[in-house]
């Protein structure tokens, strides 16, 4: 669902039109569940976070002054619900990622520098992500340290802006940019490893 549609549904609900209710709930419930599942690592926690978030959303819908902001507003509430719920992350402990660990290796055979990197041209460009690749992507995001994972989920999966992400996570925009870049490099590296192990996989 595009952001425009979400905004329209929010407008209808604010105007008191309950016909938008089920579509709105179904859409955001799946989104919040997915974010929480990748942040908390537990299905049951993610289900609870989704319900608690939506409950809070409906209780305080009047606080949403600008329907255009419905997605970041909901993720702000979801992030807080997730923090309350979260047990110790099952995926990875919090740690800092440094740029240097993602610098690509060069080989200098024949006097010319060549990047040691998989053949990314074989990556499918169609709309459907194959399930195996999807699993690799999910695992790569899931293995990111938590403070990087939340940034990448909000920026690249939920496609929120740098400013919206900064406001939700209570960070400066510069910190969001720094973490996003390192998170992307880490995920890129995992995908590269996957593509390197069998070049035919991307086809």
């Amino acid at each position, binding site marked *: 669902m595009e952001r425009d549609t979400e905004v329209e549904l929010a407008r209808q*609900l604010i105007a*008191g039109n*309950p016909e938008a*209710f089920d579509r709105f*709930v*179904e859409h955001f*419930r*799946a989104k919040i*569940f*997915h974010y929480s*599942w990748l942040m908390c690592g537990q*299905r049951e926690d*993610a*289900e609870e976070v*989704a*319900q608690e978030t*939506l*409950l809070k959303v*409906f*209780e*305080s*819908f*009047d606080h949403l002054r600008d329907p255009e902001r419905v997605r970041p507003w909901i993720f702000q509430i979801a992030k807080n619900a997730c923090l309350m719920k979260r047990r110790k992350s099952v995926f990875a402990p919090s740690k800092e990622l440094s*740029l240097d660990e993602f*610098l*690509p290796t*060069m080989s200098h055979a024949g006097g010319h*520098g*060549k*990047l040691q*990197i*998989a053949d*990314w041209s074989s*990556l499918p460009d169609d*709309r459907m*992500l194959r*399930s195996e*690749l*999807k*699993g690799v*992507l*999910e695992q790569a*995001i899931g293995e990111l340290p938590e403070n990087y994972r939340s940034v*990448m989920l909000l920026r*690249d*999966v939920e*496609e929120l802006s*740098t400013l919206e992400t900064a406001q939700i996570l209570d960070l400066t925009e510069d910190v969001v*940019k720094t973490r*996003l*870049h390192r998170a*992307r*490099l880490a*995920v*890129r590296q995992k*995908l*590269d490893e996957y593509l390197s192990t069998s070049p035919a996989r991307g086809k």
Partner: protein
Amino acid sequence: MASHEHNEKCKEVFSLLSEYLDLELTAEACQEIEAHLVGCPPCIEFAESLRKTVDLCHRYQPTELPDPLGQQAREQLLDAYRKMLAGRKPVS
């Protein structure tokens, strides 16, 4: 150009790639990166792989979905919504 300088420029470009892809750099900084990329195939190749990574995230649709919403949970939400509407001050 000494190869050392070249490597330093590659590293600088490497550190700015996400902001470059997100169009968050100044026009001047963008031009500087593009001027480097034109003459540096390894940096182009790396930038392309990062662009594809971001693109995969944008296209990604979750496999893991919540269980269907139960009737009781739905009622709880609908009830909260109705109460919120009922609690509004009438417009005079």
